[in-house]
């Protein structure tokens, strides 16, 4: 045991660029044999606690590739997509071509076969350029693909996963007009008949709906048992009775389509149930725990992208004979914001690494999402101030980041819900 640990640790100090691959196994064994670990750690003299900003070679390569791709193939479309409130088809197609829509999915289904952390890095890089594109990628990877990969039967995976990684966008349908934060009081019903269900109801605030080919619909098969009747149904876009209504005219994230859906006697075969009947609530919570980290990554990217677009201006613009950046008041504000972004990033990366390591991560994920949404709001607001008048115009990208950030405190669990969840967990920590 000790010998293999020594090997792992000395490997990690020779290949500093890939410590996580080696030490991920080491983490798990550390918790079972603490005494042995410390001595062999010292014996090897290895670096076994690399900083959070340590990436495996493939993670670095992916980040570079996505950065380049986003600059060249998404950046030119951003302002037009925001203006017209429409995601360009070319952009969606190129997301699939680059393998960004199936990051964790097995190559057997045309996926990239990479890790959750890689998805987080991708979402962060995309959000630096356009948070709307980032959210499309985030929902596909952290919600839709994960649900199919973990709960799908072989037949369902074969039918849907290869398409989700190649050309089909998915939508996650939970919220309704009368149930947002109180998600489990949803009213959409699924009534059983022989070997199929009839779904009736409506959903609201459904992202990606304009382009989605498949919808994961949470409906209640047995309202008398409350949330324990919620079941996840796979509904194809062209199913009769499914109506995708006009998208919302939003303040921000405008390129991401957000539509109401109506279900009017939508017939769904029994085999289209994803997972078990009545377990839908559990799946939703489980997926949203991870999805939360994705949103945190989006907010970090948004803040960083806004910041990166602002600082060059402050270094260039001269007033009273010096650069804006040289005024101490500006320097202090800039340093403060940079610190907040860094803190948000570390919370996000740590939550992602905890999830990958199979350790409890819910509190950290909530912290990451809550904190980064606040940071995004602060950063974008400050950036407009630093840019002065031009920050207030649409000629510069800053105002778009300001409009886009607000949704971070609202969707995939409002800030208040995050805080309450954290508090409950903290309360439990002091139980013993």
């Amino acid at each position, binding site marked *: 045991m000790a010998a293999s640990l020594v090997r792992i640790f000395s490997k990690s100090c020779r290949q500093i660029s890939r410590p996580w691959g080696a030490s991920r196994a080491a983490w798990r064994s550390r918790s079972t044999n603490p005494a042995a670990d410390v001595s062999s750690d010292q014996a090897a003299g290895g670096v076994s606690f690399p900083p959070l900003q340590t990436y495996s*070679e*493939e993670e670095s*390569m*992916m980040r570079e*590739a*996505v950065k*380049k*791709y986003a600059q060249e193939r998404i950046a030119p479309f951003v302002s037009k997509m925001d203006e017209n409130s429409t995601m360009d088809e070319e952009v969606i197609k190129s997301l699939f*071509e*680059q*393998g*960004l829509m199936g*990051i964790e999915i097995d*190559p057997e289904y*045309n*996926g*990239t*076969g*990479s890790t959750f952390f*890689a998805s987080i890095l*991708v979402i962060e890089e995309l959000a630096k350029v356009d948070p709307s594109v980032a959210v499309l990628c985030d929902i596909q990877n952290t919600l839709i693909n994960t649900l199919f990969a973990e709960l799908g039967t072989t037949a369902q995976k074969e039918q849907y996963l290869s398409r989700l990684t190649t050309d089909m966008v998915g939508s996650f349908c939970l919220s309704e007009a009368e149930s947002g934060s109180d998600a489990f009081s949803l009213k959409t019903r699924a009534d059983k008949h022989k070997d199929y269900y009839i779904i009736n109801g409506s959903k609201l605030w459904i992202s990606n709906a304009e382009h989605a080919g498949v919808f994961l619909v949470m409906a209640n098969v047995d309202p008398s048992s409350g949330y324990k009747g919620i079941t996840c149904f796979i509904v194809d876009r062209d199913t009769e009775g499914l109506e995708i209504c006009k998208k919302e005219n939003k303040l921000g994230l405008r390129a991401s389509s957000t539509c109401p859906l109506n279900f009017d006697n939508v017939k769904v075969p029994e085999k289209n149930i994803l997972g078990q009947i009545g377990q839908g609530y559990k799946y939703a919570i489980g997926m949203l725990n991870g999805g939360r980290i994705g949103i945190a990554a989006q907010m970090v990217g948004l803040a960083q992208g806004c910041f990166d677009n602002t600082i060059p201006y402050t270094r260039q613009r001269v007033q009273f004979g010096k650069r804006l950046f040289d005024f101490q008041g500006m320097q202090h504000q800039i340093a403060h914001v940079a610190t907040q972004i860094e803190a948000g990033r570390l919370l996000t990366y740590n939550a992602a690494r905890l999830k990958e390591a199979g350790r409890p991560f819910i509190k950290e994920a909530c912290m990451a999402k809550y904190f980064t949404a606040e940071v995004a709001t602060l950063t974008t607001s400050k950036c407009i101030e630093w840019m002065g008048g031009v920050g207030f115009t649409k000629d510069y990208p800053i105002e778009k980041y300001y409009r886009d950030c607000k949704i971070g405190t609202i969707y995939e669990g409002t800030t208040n819900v995050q805080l309450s969840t954290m508090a409950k967990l903290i309360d439990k920590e002091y139980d013993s």
Partner: protein
Amino acid sequence: MSGRVLVGVKRVIDYAVKIRVKPDNSGVVTDGVKHSMNPFCEIAVEEAVKLKEKKFIKEVVAVSCGPQQAQETIRTALAMGADRGIHVEVTGKDYDTLGPLQVSKIFAALAKKEDAQLLILGKQAIDDDCNQTGQMTAALLDWPQGTFASEVSLEGDKIKVVREIDGGLETIKINTPAVLTADLRLNTPRYATLPNIMKAKKKKIAQVKPADLGVDITSRLEVLRVDEPPQRLAGVTVETVDDLVAKLKESGTI
């Protein structure tokens, strides 16, 4: 014919970086500076991969000469579609003085060792702008060369190359094996997609030393001094042609 293509890829300072000269004028600052694959080498890799996709050739081997970090450049080539890589280890002082002549000797030796049908290089590197390696390698191997290629097509055992020259475009037909150097308009390099980056991890990179190939890499050149170009001064607007002539006479230009 082996159906094997060797592609040379060079790790250079990224084109977007602002270059700074070292305080001792011995060279430019490279520590901590962003490096990437030479853009013309990217075009060379893309052409090789395209030829493989069209089934004209069977294997693309990416080659780079340099220290450990050169492997990153090879990995990028692998992520673009090359099948395997060869890293020729050159470090320290040797790397600082490594130039086209030594690299050509290395490539010539590898081309023979790997029984290559084709050697594709970028026309020049953006750090030294030498534009010599392709030509020297062809001479050492006594192979025909198609340099500044903006269009390449394989026709049987010959290659048709359209070259960008000062006067316009020149079309030549050369025998294989041959050396080609890629010019800007030959193609648009593809992005490394995420699945390909993952696949690249499994591809092999062999390590060799120049001595293993029987190549002597001592340099015949010594860099004496590196200076920044003179600062470009602001211009002056003149009102009339007479003013212009007067100013030119004043500055001693005419």
